[in-house]
């Protein structure tokens, strides 16, 4: 009997410290697997899926209409024209939309803790953060980034940008780094929910609230607020600072030009801090119930 038991078993998987690259690849794959499950789960309620998608498209479309309406009474806002505002709107909404698509669900951490779902995630051989970010993933979240991309494309055709090689390069860098910065803000503030259940509201004001602020030129805000987005929560690196370079505008704070190229650095720093907050949160986790 004992011999047979040995034969019917797979060999014990080796515990080897995986390289950081392998860990990230596995996290991405876990996210992908979980997101695919959620997509199918949500599709099982097809009718409500279609309705939500329609509602989403209408709401996001109206969002930019508000900006256009503002320009019926004025030609510039804070010295910026409508196409320039379209550029800020498009980049900010695109970065937020993509971040929300990939990691936005992390904001439900407090609820996952209360219902015990996090415990279930923690006993699976996949990073809990990846599973949490994919929770309730739905393709209808593509609506926002799609609308933002459309506005951005329109603004690029309407703008008269002097395209130098660094400006051409800055554009994709801006979208990627903006997404990463928003992702870091989502994760960093969500981690607070390990200690403090109501932290979700703070997070919302920095993600959705922050994205709304970034849709307007930095010149319309107080200098202190703009400085806060450079040296505090680094939202200025999402689009304001690189936009100054691309649109050839003066910096209201008069910072060195290097800041306008520093988005990758800011994104890396923000992600590192968010990662540390998440790990500290997991160590402080007290379990569901009790």
């Amino acid at each position, binding site marked *: *009997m*004992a011999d047979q*038991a*040995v034969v*019917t*078993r*797979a060999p*014990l*998987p080796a*515990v080897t410290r995986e390289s950081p690259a392998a860990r990230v690849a*596995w996290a991405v794959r*876990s996210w992908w*697997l*979980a997101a695919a*499950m959620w997509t*199918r*789960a*949500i599709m*099982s*309620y097809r009718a409500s899926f279609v309705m939500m998608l329609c509602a989403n498209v209408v709401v996001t479309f109206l969002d930019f209409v508000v900006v256009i309406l503002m320009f019926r009474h004025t030609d510039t806002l804070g010295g910026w024209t409508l196409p320039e505002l379209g550029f800020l709107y498009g980049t900010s909404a695109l970065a937020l939309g993509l971040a929300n698509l990939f990691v936005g669900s992390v904001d439900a951490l407090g609820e996952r803790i209360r219902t*015990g*779902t996090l*415990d*279930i995630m*923690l*006993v*699976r*051989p*996949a*990073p809990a953060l990846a599973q949490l970010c994919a929770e309730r993933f739905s393709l209808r979240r593509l609506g926002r980034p799609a609308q933002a991309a459309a506005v951005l494309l329109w603004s690029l055709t309407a703008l008269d940008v002097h395209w130098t090689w660094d400006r051409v390069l800055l554009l994709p860098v801006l979208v990627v780094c903006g997404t990463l910065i928003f992702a870091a803000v989502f994760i960093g503030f969500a981690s607070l929910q390990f200690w403090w259940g109501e932290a979700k509201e703070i997070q919302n004001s920095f993600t959705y609230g922050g994205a709304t602020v970034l849709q307007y030129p930095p010149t319309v805000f107080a200098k202190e607020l703009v400085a806060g987005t450079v040296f505090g929560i680094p939202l200025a690196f999402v689009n304001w600072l690189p936009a100054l370079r691309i649109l050839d505008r003066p910096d209201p704070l008069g910072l060195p030009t290097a800041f306008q190229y520093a988005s990758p650095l800011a994104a890396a720093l923000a992600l590192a801090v968010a990662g540390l907050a998440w790990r500290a949160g997991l*160590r402080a*986790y*007290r*379990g569901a119930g*009790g």
Partner: protein
Amino acid sequence: MALIELDDVRRTFTVRAKAGRLRREKREVRAVDGLTFTVEAGECVGYIGPNGAGKSTTIKMLTGILVPTAGRLRVAGVDPARERVALARRIGVVFGQRTTLWWDLPLRDSYELARRLYRIPDHRYRANLDRCVELLDLGALLDTPVRQLSLGQRMRGDLAAALLHDPRVLYLDEPTIGLDVVSKAKVRDFLREVNRDLGTTVLLTTHDLTDIEQLCDRVMVIDHGRVVHDGGLEALHAAGDSERTLVVDLAGSHPPIEVPGARVVRVEGPRQWLAFPSQESAAPVVAAVAARYPLVDLSVREPAIEDVIARMYAEVAIG
């Protein structure tokens, strides 16, 4: 080397309780308070104790969900909290109160996901799924969305999900909670098979003494986060079997009954409770009572798990 090793493991929770109107007081709850034990490969251990004893907290530390406050912990050669993902491939976990299955999707889809997440080789996956489907009678349920399953069916589905990747250890936190007698029997038969035929180490918590009696060869009783008993089932029997209770209803009030082989422990009007050694038959006691008193009705009570445990503590405290 033992499969599970704990060395003076502790876990405290700081809770803030209201003290007076505005003041809030910090208090330390020692959920696990110095556990030291080992479990060898192939054992089936019953882990029991009253509510709040620290059973779930122990399991959460053994699975890497919770980080211990102090002490050393090893499962299958791994520090659970530190290498949680690596450990997850070597263990199976079933929580009776929650499910790992995907609510809106057919049972089969949850298993397919497990195949990918645990990187189960195809032939192992097929062999394990076939065995679970047969033993747990899941064939007709595989294509049913989980939300349509009954509690018992879902529990069987969860058991299968926990075993597809050939885990070395299976932790079960109250796997029979809320199940009817038939479902409980199915779950127990399956667990026995898994432990005996596959050699999977099993650690299970329960409030149902029958689970322990039918499955385990070792029982650990904990209370206030400490082990108060660790050994074979004989001790459980010795403590549990030591006394059964005969409840008799007489026609009218009487002074405490006096019969050989039993003693009265409680009197309430016409009803009296008599304790007698449970290795003895109830028949002579009943006969003796019936011969001398106007007996109207009677029943025999088996000891409940809480009574058994309570008696064990008493012995630990004295001995």
